[in-house]
């Protein structure tokens, strides 16, 4: 059942990614001031949105784990966090490449860039905590609690960093600017299309990772049985 779902998602995501790549390279026009490099933005922003969706999914799963104490929510939380970290890394790296071309530096202490990095560190800590706990139930509980704290901290950090300094390009999507069209509708459309493609990709990653988690848990359980037999 899940294998079929993964294959079905792959069948949609694969062609969509290829089609998007083609349109990004040959379909959309160059941007007026930035030239061709702006195309990286079609991956930069969708990767961020995907990562944010993953982080949010992990928070929901963690809260559900604390409420229901069911291991499946823990498996989802870790899968979503790992996938989120991967897309956040894409977001950070594309942002750095863009910054190198446009600002002339790899790393500016730009608020959103800084925030994304802090997020990355916070959620990486979550993964580190997991590796240090052996008992699966204890691990699930402690990391769910940490995930709740991580989300709270990341939300406050967003506000703090915004006040700290700002030089990032402002919002461009019409849903964020109150309907004012700041970019060509074709470009905006492309961003949504690629967000969809990356979200599908993320769903596949999460499902594959989820299966790994379940198998791992089964192995752990069997190993404990084996120890108990002796």
């Amino acid at each position: 059942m899940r294998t079929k779902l993964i294959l079905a998602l792959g069948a949609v995501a694969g062609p969509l990614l290829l089609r998007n790549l083609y349109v990004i390279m040959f379909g959309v026009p160059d941007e007026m001031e930035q030239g061709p490099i702006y195309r990286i933005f079609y991956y930069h922003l969708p990767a961020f949105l995907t990562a944010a969706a993953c982080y949010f999914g992990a928070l929901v799963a963690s809260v559900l784990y604390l409420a229901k104490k069911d291991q499946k929510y823990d498996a989802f939380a870790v899968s979503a966090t790992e996938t989120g970290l991967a897309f956040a890394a894409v977001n950070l790296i594309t942002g750095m490449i863009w910054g190198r071309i446009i600002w002339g530096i790899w790393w500016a202490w730009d608020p959103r860039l800084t925030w994304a990095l802090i997020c990355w560190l916070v959620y990486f800590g979550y993964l580190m905590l997991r590796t240090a706990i052996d008992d699966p139930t204890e691990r699930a509980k402690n990391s769910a609690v940490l995930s709740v704290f991580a989300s709270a901290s990341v939300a406050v950090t967003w506000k703090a960093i915004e006040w700290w300094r700002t030089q990032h390009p402002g919002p461009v999507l019409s849903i964020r600017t109150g309907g004012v069209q700041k970019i060509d509708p074709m470009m905006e459309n492309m961003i949504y299309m690629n967000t969809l493609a990356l979200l599908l990709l993320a769903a596949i990653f999460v499902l594959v990772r989820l299966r790994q988690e379940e198998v791992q848990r089964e192995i752990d359980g069997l190993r404990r049985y084996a120890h108990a037999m002796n």
Partner: protein
Amino acid sequence: MTTLRHAAAIARKDLRSEFRTKESINSTLSFSVVILLLFSFAFDPSPDMIVEFGGGLLWMVFAFAGALIVNRSFARELPNDCIDVLVSSPASGASLFLGKAVAAFVLLFGIECICLPVFGIFYNITWWRSLGGLMGVLALGTWALACAGTFFSALTMNLRLRELMLPMLLYPMLIPALLSAMMLTNTLLTGQPIPSDFTVWLRILIGFNIMFTTLSLYLAETILVR
């Protein structure tokens, strides 16, 4: 009310233990002074420079000191399995957490109050010009460190590599609180009144404290009952 009474008993016990052994007080204090010293070697700052980044320097030192203090917080309960006796007692998880956080706060605040004059002497700076405000910011920032630190100390209590894991989890999450405290301290060190747009830092710091204290009190029981 019972929660507070239990918390007070735990805090008294922790402080008494600490003052008897002086394990973390001595190490933390000497560590803080060494960092203050090293920093002046590394940058040889002029008085103007120090006014600009004094807040940052101080909070770096306090953050390191805080990690050392809270590392001992729940670890202190591990020998002889005292934690089991505490959890099985009528004291709730929230009151155990609160007592330990208060003890960590008192220790850290004391160490900070010793560090401030040392800082003033090393860097030739009159830091007491807005003493009331400075103490207020110090208290707020220290509570953020003590509260989050103590909670994470409970979270990492049974881990391998506890001493490494704690700061790694703690520092990234403390960034909003530390950043606000640094900004406010910088301004207060100059002796100027706080500019009106700086109240946002105060709001962030207070907001962070409220949020983390609430979450910690709410989730302490979940963490401590295994």
